[in-house]
């Protein structure tokens, strides 16, 4: 990892901003805090830290503030709609950075409590893909509800879907589902080892 070692040469210390720049090529220091990302973000109102504030937290390069960024709900709310990067005058790929922060938040066990639902959904989704090669919507919903305990939320939609012939109850896997499962094994294993 290319980070500057400390002068005393004790051990190399990377700030979160440096790590992010190295890992995904997005520099938080390019942000000049104009707020255009926040102004256009569909979810800014629900975030605990606005998108530009997340960048500001990283700019301090202080562990306490970095932790606040990783503990934030904002990183889990990001929809990757890419509105921000489309309009950003400094062309900062904020969605990519958010993705990186989510991964770091998970790894360091700093996930926001409300992020759990979102994570549970993503996990349920990937579970389904790992098992069948494709997404099985019924399985996904059931699995998600089991993971989160939100048993009643959204449950009204299901019968209507069924009635309109949109839900397949029996999972149908693809022929190559073993191959897909191997992809998961390799990469989910890798992921753990790499960081």
């Amino acid at each position, binding site marked *: 990892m290319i980070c500057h070692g400390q002068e005393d040469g004790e051990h190399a210390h990377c700030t979160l901003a440096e790590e992010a720049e190295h890992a995904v090529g997005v520099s938080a220091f390019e942000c000049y805090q*104009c*707020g255009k990302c*926040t*102004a256009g973000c569909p979810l*800014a*109102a629900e975030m605990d830290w606005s998108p*530009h504030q997340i960048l500001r937290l990283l700019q301090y390069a202080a562990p306490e503030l970095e932790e606040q960024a990783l503990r934030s709900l904002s990183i889990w709310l990001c929809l990757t709609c890419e509105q921000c990067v489309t309009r*950003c*005058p400094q062309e900062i790929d904020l969605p990519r950075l958010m993705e990186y922060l989510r991964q770091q938040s998970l790894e360091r066990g700093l996930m926001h409590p409300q992020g759990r639902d979102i994570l549970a959904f993503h996990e349920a989704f990937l579970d389904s893909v790992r098992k069948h090669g494709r997404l099985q919507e019924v399985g996904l919903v059931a699995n998600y509800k089991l993971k989160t305990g939100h048993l009643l939320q959204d449950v009204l939609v299901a019968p209507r879907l069924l009635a309109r012939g949109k839900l397949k109850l029996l999972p149908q896997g693809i022929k190559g589902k073993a191959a897909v499962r191997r992809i998961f094994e390799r990469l989910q294993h890798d992921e753990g080892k790499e960081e």
Partner: protein
Amino acid sequence: MARIGVFICHCGENIGSTVDCAAVAKAAGELPGVVHSVDYKYMCSDPGQSMIKDAIRTQKLTGVVVGACSPRMHEPTFRRACNEAGLNPFLCEMANLREHCSWVHEKLPDTTAKAIDLVRILVEKVKRNKPLSSIKVPVTKRALVLGGGIAGIQAALDIAGAGHEVVLVERSPSIGGHMAQLSETFPTLDCSQCILTPRMVEVAQHPNITLYTYSELESLEGFIGNFKATIRKRARGVDEKLCTGCGVCTQKCPNKKIPSEFNEHLGTRPAIYVPFPQAVPNKPVIDRDRCTYYSKGKCQVCAKMCPTKAIRYDQEDELITIDIGAVVAATGFTIKGTDFFPEYGYGQYPNVITGLQFERLASASGPTLGVIRRPSDNEIPENVVFIACAGSRDSAKRLSYCSKICCMYTAKHAMLYKHKVHEGRAHVFYMDIRAGGKMYDEFVRRAIEEDQVNYIRGRVSRVFERNGKMIVKGVDTLLNGQSIEIEADLVVLATAMTAQPDAEATAQRMKISYDADHFLSEAHPKLRPVEMNTAGIFVAGACQAPKDIPETVAQASAAASKVVGLFSRSELAREPVVATVNRTAPPLFSTCVGCFLCETACPYQAIERDDIRGRDGQLIRQVAKVNQGVCQGCGTCVALCRSKAIDLQGFTNEQVFAELLAV
């Protein structure tokens, strides 16, 4: 034997902190031919220069190498010092240890090694330098000022006032430039036209100024003191001598619905027109692309109505060639249009306008006679949003610089609006307020405190239309990133100030340099701010970088004083970096074989043919000869010469090969 002196400068910490200067001096002292080698904190200072002068005298030096900053910075300084000590200035060379070494490399042994190499290269070169003497050239005491905005007007008046002839060339039908379009000026709120138009009239009446409007520079040849400018005087379609400027033609022209450039398309003009009432000269032009006569062959109303029969449909462009001694480039700027902003509607909303359009709305001579009315329905807007940094400081839009004037004119706009519409609300979205200047910050504070303009710190993400209102979606970063949505009647974008669309072509025509944003590049950002790298060409105004009126005027006067300084001499000394053709004893006379490849390659037609005749007058041979007054020293001829007969003083084959051998 060569006796070379080497002087290594620390430049304070600039070189000294990365390069071991003492080691460089020591290593240089051991080079063959070097008899004196020292290092010192500031070589360019008075004591530093004295060290060099003393060494020249006491050590009887035959050459000097100064290892310091770029020769583009201090070569003249050190050459002058050498000259004062009695050493021919062209026996002094500089090794660039700062820009090319200490500033671009880390503090490593390799960096000091490179510095030693650079010094050695120049030592080998200077051993082969020859004493040269400057070339004298005459000066034509007539200036060309390119551009008739406030920069060009000021420069022209100053030069003309000093008693020299000026040719002022303006592309549009009238002088005045953008300043003529402005309503009031910051920070005094005095009327722009009231202070400008007297100066425009002065230009027209000045006996030393020849004014060419509706004209462009076609080409510029030559060099300092001796340029030849060709000007294309475009056909106005009007005989200027006969025309009295009565205006009947413009009133009678049936084709009146053409968007007016002067009013930034908020008003209209006829096909034969004077851009604005106070125009100088007050003579109309025919817009041939819009005139019915040129498209359909019928109409001629203006010709029929003209009391002095001044209309000339068949008039042609005229090319005028003039001898010129110096040039002031004052070609001005343009702004980005609202269509440059996808997020603000691609220019499709009439109520999203530029700052310059707002100037026309606020101007008493504008399309609304100074009443602020929004373009869509001519209603007086009750809620106006001003967006600063529209395009400026926006790398994504490839405009990373600050346009410098927007903070001030936006404050002025908001203030003017509040003065005209008392019940109205004005909001300014900004990122930073840059109000450095005399009474500038006080002006912005006045807008905020007295006129209660609502300044919101944050950039606007989107502007769109709903129910006849412009919805402005922004953010207040000082309110914890709260999103701010304003229903505005009018949105004014402080759009970025950019170089003219043809700035690159203009610069290439004059052979001057420009930067990545196509603004003209001055010779040195601090010490030579109005000179171009090409001698004899000066710069003034916003063609060099965004700037406001006071700065523009100051720069124009500075450029003018440079021109006047140049014209105070009747002869110029030019660097003797010119080509020469060798001469040898008879019967060879020269190694030149007379192929004249050099003649075809020379961009300046500096190669002449020299007849070598015997005593009986009979032609023996014809060889090439360089006209040293015309040669600019590019050396293209040297590279082409088959018999190595032609060489470039200061960069001779021997010198350059010696440099290579020393690498």
